[in-house]
């Protein structure tokens, strides 16, 4: 296997594009390698899906695009596709000798950005750089959206402005940042430098987020501004932009939570009817998978949990009744704007998630997408704590919003989950990261649940798992979203949080009540060993909502697809995540 990822792209794009080709056919591998080299791309070939995943994980930023055959002996190509999309958020092109519409559709559903039929011609390969480019543009747009929003708010607040933000108008900011960010992104990419100081690539670990929240509370939420927060946080490598972006998300999260709470109050519970409990073929990708995962805590899959998520495991377990409760509350517009931005920051992800989930209360979609953009693609949830942070960050972001306001009822879901789940023990250590919600959820949900086999990838499930643990949920991607990260100490920082915090004594959650949300906040969760990633939600059967949550997580991702995004539903998840 050739290893070509190490060298940075010194020539101008698209020359030097780092391609990973996965195919069990050695003949085609040779041909593709030769063809791609002729396009001046850097090629790495791989004959096994697992090997490919290993390579990708070893070097998270070592590749720009993956081309994979749908038919692999050790793993279904679609599963690999899901994994890559979720974990690494790279564009994936599928190949097959079979051009049946259903297969192609499946590819698209699972997040493929293209589907090539064998025999593949050179000209088809020459154009693959467009997928990479497109993704970058989308990411930038998403980030910009946040930044511009942030900028506007800052200007409104009269707080400090970032040097490179033109605060006076959203558009100015957007265009300015777009140029700048894109260039930054590209330059950074060239050198494989993805240190935390890289713009938008900060990994918001639990600790970091806690610092952030502390600072916010100290300053006073109304008077807060990135510079002030940054000064208080006293984290040398953190930039104002990082904080600004994070603050943006946090605000949105809080807004969302607030709305959820309001909604909850009015509806007296969330009804999640949309989530299809079983969905085959990833139609509901996320949703189904989530459900499945939750219900089925089956760790038997050694595949990427994502795949499980995608509904392969859809299990009928979820009980609609229960799920109903969890239902993600549709988010009202807070998310809307966001969603708009995220065209498909992560195409693959979104596509995967979006499948047709109808229900997906995607409220959180927006959030996720947003987060996704700014957060490094990979979902760090896999065993590394720091990796997680990224994910967590996402979740945090989500959660944070909720935090500042009172915790929305969302937690209820979680709580429910716990209760339902009876004590599954999640074995994998869970990081205390706050449920990096959304972002993670999506992705992770996919991934996590079944991550068992995939060691590295534990990211997602972790968050979820954490959650579960507290609730004794073993499954539920949702749970991971929440509680895990819930750090009580963080919560205490937030007044509103405190109100709603309910000490979730392991799995003894009071019947859903709005205050339950806090449950996950409890530090208990944090350190539990959640069996993460695989959201083994074995005991989920009753947790209807659990499933729901993930779904919506996914939904966010699917924002670029037309998923019926129901913002309200999303919030739930978010809240859980931010419990810091």
């Amino acid at each position: 296997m050739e290893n070509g990822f190490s060298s940075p792209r010194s020539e101008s794009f698209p020359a030097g594009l780092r391609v990973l080709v996965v195919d069990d056919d050695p003949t085609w591998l040779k041909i593709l390698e030769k063809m791609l080299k002729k396009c001046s791309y850097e090629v790495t070939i791989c004959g096994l899906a697992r090997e490919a995943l290993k390579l990708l994980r070893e070097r998270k930023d070592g590749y720009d695009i993956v081309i994979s055959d749908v038919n692999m002996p050790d793993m279904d190509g679609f599963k690999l596709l899901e994994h890559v999309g979720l974990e690494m958020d790279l564009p994936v092109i599928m190949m097959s000798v079979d051009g049946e519409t259903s297969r192609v559709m499946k590819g698209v559903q699972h997040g493929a950005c293209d589907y090539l039929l064998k025999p593949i011609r050179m000209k088809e390969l020459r154009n693959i750089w467009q997928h990479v480019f497109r993704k970058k543009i989308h990411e930038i747009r998403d980030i910009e959206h946040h930044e511009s929003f942030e900028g506007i708010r800052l200007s409104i607040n009269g707080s400090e402005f970032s040097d490179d933000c033109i605060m006076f108008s959203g558009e100015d900011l957007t265009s300015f940042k777009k140029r700048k960010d894109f260039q930054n992104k590209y330059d950074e990419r060239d050198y494989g430098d993805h240190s935390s100081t890289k713009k938008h690539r900060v990994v918001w670990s639990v600790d970091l987020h806690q610092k952030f929240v502390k600072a916010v509370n100290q300053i006073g939420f109304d008077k807060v501004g990135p510079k002030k927060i940054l000064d208080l946080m006293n984290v040398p490598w953190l930039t104002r932009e990082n904080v600004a972006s994070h603050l943006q998300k946090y605000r949105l999260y809080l807004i969302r939570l607030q709305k959820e709470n309001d909604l909850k109050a009015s509806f007296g519970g969330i009804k999640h009817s949309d989530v299809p409990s079983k969905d085959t073929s990833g139609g509901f990708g996320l949703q189904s998978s989530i459900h499945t995962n939750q219900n089925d805590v089956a760790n038997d899959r050694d595949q990427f949990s994502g795949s499980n998520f995608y509904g392969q495991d859809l299990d009928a377990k979820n009980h609609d009744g229960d799920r109903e409760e969890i239902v993600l509350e549709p988010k009202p517009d807070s998310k809307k704007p966001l969603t708009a931005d995220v065209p498909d920051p992560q195409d693959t992800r979104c596509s995967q998630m979006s499948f047709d989930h109808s229900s997906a209360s995607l409220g959180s979609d927006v959030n996720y997408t947003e987060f996704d953009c700014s957060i490094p693609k990979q979902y760090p949830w896999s065993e590394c704590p720091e990796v997680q942070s990224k994910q967590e960050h996402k979740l945090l972001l989500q959660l944070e919003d909720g935090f500042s306001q009172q915790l929305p009822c969302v937690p209820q879901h979680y709580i429910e989950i716990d209760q339902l789940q009876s004590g599954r023990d999640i074995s994998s250590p869970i990081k205390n990261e706050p449920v990096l919600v959304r972002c993670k959820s999506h992705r992770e949900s996919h991934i996590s649940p079944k991550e068992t086999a995939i060691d590295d990838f534990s990211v997602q499930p972790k968050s979820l798992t954490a959650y579960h643990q507290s609730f004794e949920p073993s499954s539920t991607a949702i749970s991971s979203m929440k509680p895990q990260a819930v750090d009580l100490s963080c919560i205490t920082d937030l007044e509103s949080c405190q109100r709603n915090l309910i000490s979730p004594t392991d799995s003894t959650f009071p019947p859903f009540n709005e205050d339950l949300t806090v449950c996950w906040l409890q530090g208990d969760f944090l350190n539990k060993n959640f069996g993460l990633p695989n959201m083994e939600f074995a005991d989920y059967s009753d947790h209807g909502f659990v499933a729901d949550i993930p779904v919506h997580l996914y939904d966010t991702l699917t924002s670029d697809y037309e998923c019926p995004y129901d913002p309200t539903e999303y919030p739930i998840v978010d809240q859980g995540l931010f419990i810091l």
Partner: protein
Amino acid sequence: MDRNRLARQVALQKQSLFDQGYIDQQFIQVEELQDVSSPNFVEEIVTSYYQDTSRLIVNIEQALERRPLDFDQLDRYIYQLNGRSTSFGARKVIAEGALFREYCEAENAEGCKTTFQQLKTEYATLKRKLEAYFQLARQARLAETASRPM
């Protein structure tokens, strides 16, 4: 002289293989990938193909012996074989493979067996013809190299 004659012969043989439907445009695509670093690239590909698929052929043969036939398994095998056959445009083999797949889907045992026999014939014939072609092509290249001024 020799060089030119050989080069012409190679071209003619290739054209003949095309005309008879043994290979298609993909063959040319792969040939175009040949360069100084890999002047025999097509030959390498074809050799790799026959090595890789020989086991598949045996597997299919064995699977066809079973009673009852496992059509899903057969379908999986032929899917793999077809994918590989497209690598250099083994047209007739691909055609037989597609037919075989149809019979699998229809769960037609007789159709599968008959088609597979045809496939094996095409598979072997193509191998023979390509081997002859490559030999000639190598000779032509040698003649070409030899005649180059030092």
